[in-house]
């Protein structure tokens, strides 16, 4: 079963190699942040607000200081200037409201879980115990929970005028109207009688990232030469270093951020969290290491949530199904504060509503709203799952309205493979794609016609268990991102990526990457890319990452960017290394550079195969430097920093068959077929694993998961007992396959796969359930489609109580 490269000459690209990472992970030889135990460490425990919105009228930590093992305790007032403000780096409009986000709340708390005070003790249990001794009184304020109510005149403001804000809950409004304001209505009017308009409101509910490793941070001021070393369970050690320098005022060159083994992220660890700021500031203040590991219950209230949008969407087509216009109005929940890229998340979806469809007219508008809830930010897909859900759902609704097969309607409107590159109505240029090929393969694997026949039968016989078929023909944008584009969108940073490759004197290779894996298998995949160019065994390459001391340059891992952008840097660095080595080899072999060819890891004189020099020998020569050609510097290394030309656009066709028990509302996935086109695959085993995991997240959102608050802003889903992350028993096996249309926006032809499953699957699931129930008058089912929500939809369809 094992795929090992016994043939040393075989090219490792595209092979399902077993992962290098796994031996360590499977034997518990791991280095999670919480494993780190430094002498003299103080454990930080955080008192969090139990109220969604309140004034702090009294706060006294003195009794906590008297508790055993307690060394210090702080409120915002005690910390003064050390109480940093959590940064937001994406002010999406010029007039965006960006209220401060103090790490420890100042005078007011604005969501359940807001940090009020901290205790530092030499023992973890003692720190937690001492929180009880803190005296705190709150004067409750009205909680702003409902987004629509929040933006009405007269609503209580989450950040009111007295706090120096505008006194409105509107954070920003962002329109995109390429054909002008009112273009949708004008297009409908112009179509005269030959038009069908379908309008829906979809709720893309709030979810959590659900990484299995809770967040943790250790900040130690005990490093070399004034260095503060920060270990954090983060996706973004490089970005975090810059932000911590800006927030704390500490010199950036004294900060070293290390993300050791990180147990999943899914966007939830793409953040500069208040707890990270507090740990660093307090470690600096007290001159000793500070450690904090969250409990899962803390994670539920304090780590950012995602999605949470109200989507009003309208689609217009001719009566025979040609789409003529699309209009999207979003209300997007920011939560109580803006975190790293909170405002930008809905806008990452803005470009993707037109999806794979050709249409002349598109209007988009987004209103970002503050509420007294945990801040939102990126979670797997970030804006694109929301867009994909809305468009794929409404295309099904349009098909129903037109009485057309939903796949036929899609085929009629999608971009044909010969039409690429294609400039979309939203302003993107899709480089390549083949929706026909992916769909044909998926339909084949799925058995579409047979399932439709069974559906007819069940309908005809009035079977209480109905069968539904759900389609999602999705695309997404990956490879964040061309720096100029990010600049144009007012994002503060760039989107480049870096790689350094060193050939060591012993022939081993060090590959230093700026990407920061947390489960993706970069060590294996990056080795495959470099090995294929350098002609060395995959196992001779050590991938160094996630430590700003050892891998100083990088933009980290999110947005399915690591391969699409980081892969380009690896390729370029490896090629540059070969170029340099060639000059040395030519000198060693006493020939001209042009006489050499590089085959299977050795330079050979063309036409004289006996004369050759392996890369390892060249590396040793570069090290000893006894006989280098004039002008060539010792050491054999090369680096590349690559800014991508454009995004890449993975796509695919997902088909789902669901049995819905119309008496109980229970849904059971009978089969799920996912054919993805992620371009060239470096390691298909890893690709498949990414698809599976994405599907589980998306199906989780569709069927099981949802963050819920009551009207007072209490979090009702505050633990894994109340928030249902699907288990093995809740999910089916998947049928996955790929079509390959190489991307032309990067030289490896890769696209990105980390988010595909999470983006594609929610509409496939909900379309299937609605399809099963449509004869009962059901036109929508709320996510998560729990038995209760399905039952309510059936009742509403019958005209009964909801």
């Amino acid at each position: 079963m094992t795929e090992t490269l016994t043939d040393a000459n075989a090219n490792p690209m595209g092979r399902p190699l077993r992962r290098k990472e796994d031996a360590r992970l499977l034997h518990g030889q791991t280095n999670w942040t919480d494993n780190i135990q430094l002498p003299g460490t103080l454990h930080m425990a955080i008192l969090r607000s139990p109220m969604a919105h309140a004034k702090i009228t009294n706060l006294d930590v003195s009794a906590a200081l008297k508790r055993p093992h307690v060394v210090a305790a702080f409120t915002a007032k005690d910390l003064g200037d050390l109480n940093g403000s959590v940064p937001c780096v994406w002010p999406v409009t010029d007039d965006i409201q960006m209220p401060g986000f103090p790490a420890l709340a100042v005078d007011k708390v604005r969501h359940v879980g807001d940090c009020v005070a901290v205790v530092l003790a030499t023992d973890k249990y003692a720190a937690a115990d001492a929180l009880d001794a803190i005296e705190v009184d709150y004067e409750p304020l009205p909680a702003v929970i409902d987004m629509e109510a929040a933006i009405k005149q007269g609503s209580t403001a989450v950040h009111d005028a007295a706090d120096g804000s505008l006194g409105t809950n509107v954070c920003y409004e962002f329109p995109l109207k390429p054909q002008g304001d009112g273009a949708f209505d004008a297009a409908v009017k112009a179509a005269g009688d030959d038009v069908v308009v379908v309008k829906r409101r979809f709720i893309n509910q709030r979810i959590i990232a659900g990484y299995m490793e809770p967040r943790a941070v250790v900040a130690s001021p005990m490093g070399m030469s004034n260095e503060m070393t920060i270990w954090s369970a983060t996706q973004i050690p490089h970005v975090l270093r810059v932000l911590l320098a800006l927030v704390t005022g500490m010199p950036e060159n004294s900060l070293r951020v290390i993300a050791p083994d990180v147990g999943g992220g899914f966007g939830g660890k793409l953040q500069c969290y208040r707890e990270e700021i507090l740990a660093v500031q307090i470690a600096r203040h007290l001159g000793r290491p500070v450690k904090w590991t969250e409990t899962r219950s803390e994670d539920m209230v304090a780590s950012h949530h995602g999605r949470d949008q109200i989507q009003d969407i309208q689609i217009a087509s001719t009566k025979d199904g040609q789409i003529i216009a699309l209009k999207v109005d979003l209300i997007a929940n920011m939560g109580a504060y803006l975190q790293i890229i909170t405002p930008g998340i809905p806008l990452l979806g803005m470009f993707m509503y037109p999806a794979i469809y050709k249409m002349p007219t598109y209007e988009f508008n987004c209103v970002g709203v503050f509420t007294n809830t945990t801040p939102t930010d990126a979670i797997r897909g970030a804006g694109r799952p929301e867009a994909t859900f809305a468009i794929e759902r409404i295309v099904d609704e349009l098909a129903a309205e037109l009485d057309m097969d939903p796949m036929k309607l899609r085929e009629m409107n999608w971009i044909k493979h010969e039409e690429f590159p294609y400039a979309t109505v939203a302003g993107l240029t899709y480089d390549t794609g083949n929706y026909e090929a992916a769909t044909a393969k998926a339909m084949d694997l799925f058995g579409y016609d047979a399932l439709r026949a069974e559906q007819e039968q069940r309908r005809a016989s009035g079977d209480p268990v109905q069968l539904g078929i759900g389609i999602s023909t999705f695309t997404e944008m990956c490879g964040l991102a061309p720096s100029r584009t990010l600049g144009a969108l007012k994002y503060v940073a760039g989107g480049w990526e870096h790689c350094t490759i060193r050939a060591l004197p012993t022939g081993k290779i060090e590959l230093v990457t700026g990407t920061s894996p947390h489960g993706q298998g970069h060590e294996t995949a990056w080795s495959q890319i470099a090995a294929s160019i350098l002609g060395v065994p995959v196992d001779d390459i050590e991938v160094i990452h996630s430590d700003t001391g050892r891998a100083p340059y990088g933009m980290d891992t999110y947005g399915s960017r690591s391969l699409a952008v980081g892969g380009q840097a690896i390729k370029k660095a490896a090629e540059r290394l070969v170029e340099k080595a060639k000059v040395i080899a030519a000198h060693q072999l006493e020939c001209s550079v042009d006489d050499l060819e590089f085959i299977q890891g050795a330079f050979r004189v063309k036409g004289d195969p006996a004369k050759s020099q392996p890369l390892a020998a060249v590396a040793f020569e570069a090290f000893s430097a006894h006989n280098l050609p004039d002008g060539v510097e010792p050491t054999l290394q090369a680096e590349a920093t690559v800014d991508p030309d454009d995004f890449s656009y993975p796509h695919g066709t997902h088909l789902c068959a669901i049995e819905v028990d119309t008496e109980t509302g229970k849904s059971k996935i009978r089969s799920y077929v996912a054919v993805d086109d992620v371009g060239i695959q470096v390691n298909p085993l890893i690709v498949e694993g990414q698809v599976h995991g994405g599907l589980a997240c998306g199906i989780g959102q569709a069927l099981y998961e949802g963050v819920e608050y009551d009207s007072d802003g209490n979090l009702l889903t505050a633990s894994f007992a109340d928030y249902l992350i699907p288990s093995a028993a809740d999910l089916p096996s998947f049928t996955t396959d790929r079509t390959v249309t190489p991307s032309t926006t990067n030289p490896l032809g890769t696209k990105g796969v980390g988010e595909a499953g999470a983006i594609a699957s929610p509409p496939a699931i909900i379309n299937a359930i609605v399809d099963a129930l449509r004869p009962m008058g059901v036109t929508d089912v709320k996510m998560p489609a729990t038995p209760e929500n399905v039952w309510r939809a059936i009742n509403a369809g019958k005209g009964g109580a909801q």
Partner: protein
Amino acid sequence: MTHIPISVTVDGTVYDVEVEPRRLLVHFLREDIGRVGTVVGCDTSNCGACTVLLDGKSVKSCSVLAVQADGHVVLTVQGLAEGEHQWHPVQTAFKECHGLQCGYCTPGMVMAAVDLLQENPNPSEEEIREGLEGNLCRCTGYHNIVKSVEYAAELMGGK
């Protein structure tokens, strides 16, 4: 708080230590004796990341007190394969079938799978899914975990 002496065998080594009565077994493993291969994922006994074998049966070590393990034998993922660089068939199968990504659920998932296969050497897909219900994984979607357990059963002669 008073400390109580306990004697626990973990991965073949006997540890005689004193612990607070309220100390969780998983914190004893991780923080008192440095067996950090076993991890914590939640505080409501839902995730299974902390699963170990206690006298050969799988338990969630976050819901057992260290004092309850007094006089008993604990096996963690770090002691599963006897001897250095050795692989238990379940570990081999997880690598072969790509049954892990970030690896955080893995110590618990592997130990739960070992227990499952002890009870039922030849489980069906459904039995595997039901058997691992108490162990959450956010990375793999379980597809390859199920495959891993099936393959481990084969390696262990169950199939």
